[in-house]
């Protein structure tokens, strides 16, 4: 991403001028790089460099701050061709050899697929690697869709709200190959207890991720494709281990027979992806609905699932959906949001209407900041503070006021027709779904606990192979 910001004229910078803000300084910790343009003739070089940096290596945001005298200024400018992307680091042959040795000694190998696989456009190569090696795969939140959800080698998402199968597999593996992922605390749980008996092979483009949180026994800092192509398994993965993973997958399969009279959001989300046609992108906001999407929707491609991971930014969903629809107009784009999150950027309903962008909004309304309420219930004895949103506006009415069609449901019997209506209505539409405000996301690895210590899940079983 390249962001161009307007700045007060150069001569007024540093004088607290009207609407002056040190955006260069404010954004220093969150950009990959940034510029303040000081001369009109520097613009082509800076813009070219900005795009090269934003896209190259591990991509990241680049900011160009443009003082008004520069943006409105005249001058001799020589346009230059865009810069080529920087060369990607290639795998070190000794590291590949070490990875092969470690993997060949494994009896319980496991892979964590991270978001880096999609970013580096290596999904097909990764899938070929799995087809060739048959190593069981778990994924992070951002790695969902790297393997199709229903692939037999895919066990599920690991971590705080991951499924039991993935968390048991990762706690029992003896070699863990981490591909384009960074040992995020939501994925690892208590770090010292994470995959305790496993040796780690870490593949990443970013050298600064290696041994940042978990020491890598083998580190491959490289473009992903040649690294994956270099790794060869001497023997097939133990059928006992694969069988064990498959067993866990069956044992911990999601259940949808929830008690209660209201609409059960996980079942509704499962039904949403069952109803999908070719090419559906789901964006989400942050909170319970986001975790339910990760758990219960199925994805054939990582770009089908746009979710704010590491930063967990409420308000991401609707703008992301607008971007996804503009980028791929042929896709059905559904923004799954919550009643807390939608309010962060609800003004974007005007953008949908203004540019006639066909985004479908599925709003799961539990009249609460649900995930925070859940934590206050479990970890703070139900001492609720600032989580109740029972004075929410009439969301369907708000949508209509912006010129967006809307429907509201609260009975399970209405779900089937409502999903059909949402997906088949022409133009932007909102389906507002009232759900139980006390519903929780399960399982849950409490903060500071090991991944196998999941609440609402059965205890860890040791594996012998």
């Amino acid at each position, binding site marked *: 991403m390249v962001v161009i910001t307007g700045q007060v004229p150069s001569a007024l910078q540093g004088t607290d001028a009207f609407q002056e803000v040190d955006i*260069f300084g404010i954004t*220093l*910790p969150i950009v*990959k*790089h940034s510029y*303040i343009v*000081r001369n009109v003739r520097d613009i082509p070089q800076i813009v070219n460099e900005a795009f090269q940096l934003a896209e190259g290596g591990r991509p990241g945001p680049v900011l160009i701050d443009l003082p008004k005298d520069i943006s409105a200024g005249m001058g001799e400018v020589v346009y230059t061709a865009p810069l080529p992307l920087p060369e990607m680091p290639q795998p070190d042959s000794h590291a590949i050899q070490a990875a092969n040795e470690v993997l060949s000694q494994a009896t319980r190998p496991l892979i964590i697929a991270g978001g880096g696989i999609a970013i580096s456009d290596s999904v097909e190569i990764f899938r070929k690697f799995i087809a060739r090696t048959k190593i069981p795969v778990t994924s992070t939140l951002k790695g969902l869709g790297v393997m199709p959800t229903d692939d037999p080698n895919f066990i599920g998402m690991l971590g705080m709200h991951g499924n039991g199968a993935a968390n048991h597999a990762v706690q029992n593996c003896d070699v863990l190959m981490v591909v384009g992922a960074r040992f995020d605390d939501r994925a690892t749980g208590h770090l010292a207890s994470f995959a305790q008996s496993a040796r780690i092979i870490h593949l990443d483009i970013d050298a600064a991720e290696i*041994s*940042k949180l978990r020491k890598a026994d083998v580190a491959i800092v490289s473009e992903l494709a040649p690294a994956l192509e270099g790794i060869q398994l001497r023997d097939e993965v133990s059928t006992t281990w694969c069988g064990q993973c498959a067993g866990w997958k069956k044992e911990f399969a999601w259940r949808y027979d929830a008690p209660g009279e209201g609409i059960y959001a996980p079942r509704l989300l499962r039904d949403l992806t069952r109803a999908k046609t070719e090419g559906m992108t789901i964006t989400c906001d942050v909170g319970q609905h986001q975790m339910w999407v990760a758990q219960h929707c199925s994805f054939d491609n990582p770009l089908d699932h746009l979710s704010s991971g590491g930063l967990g930014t409420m308000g991401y969903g609707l703008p992301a959906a607008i971007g996804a629809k503009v980028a791929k107009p042929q896709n059905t784009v559904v923004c799954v949001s919550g009643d807390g999150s939608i309010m962060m950027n609800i003004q974007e309903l005007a953008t949908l209407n203004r540019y006639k962008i066909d985004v479908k909004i599925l709003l799961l309304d539990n009249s609460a900041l649900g995930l925070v309420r859940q934590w206050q219930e479990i970890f703070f004895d139900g001492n609720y503070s600032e989580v109740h949103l029972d004075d929410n506006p009439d969301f369907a009415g708000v949508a209509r006021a912006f010129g967006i069609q809307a429907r509201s449901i609260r009975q399970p019997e209405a779900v089937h027709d409502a999903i059909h209506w949402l997906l088949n209505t022409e133009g932007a539409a909102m389906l507002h779904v009232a759900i139980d405000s006390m519903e929780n996301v399960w399982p849950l690895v409490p903060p500071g606990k090991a991944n196998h210590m999941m609440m609402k899940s059965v205890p860890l079983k040791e594996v012998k192979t």
Partner: protein
Amino acid sequence: MMNQTLHIRLRNVEGAVIRALGLIERRGYSLDNCTVSQAQGDDRRMEVGVRSSRPGDLLKRQLERLHDVLHVELLPVTANHKHNPHIRPLQGENK
């Protein structure tokens, strides 16, 4: 807690020094001393002494990610490090 010294070569551009120093503190390294001087050509040379329970080589790799950082050298821990006697180690971290 370890004292580490790094020699950093930077481009002489707006924000380069503050970007590097900001990263050092944000990543959990406290800054004991810092000198910035003119290096070869137009570049700047920065010498920093840091303290942290986190490894120096990780900081080195984090600094190397910055576009304005041209080279980072991590001096061996035994090198002649200027220790600041006014800074007491934080309790429980002086192991």
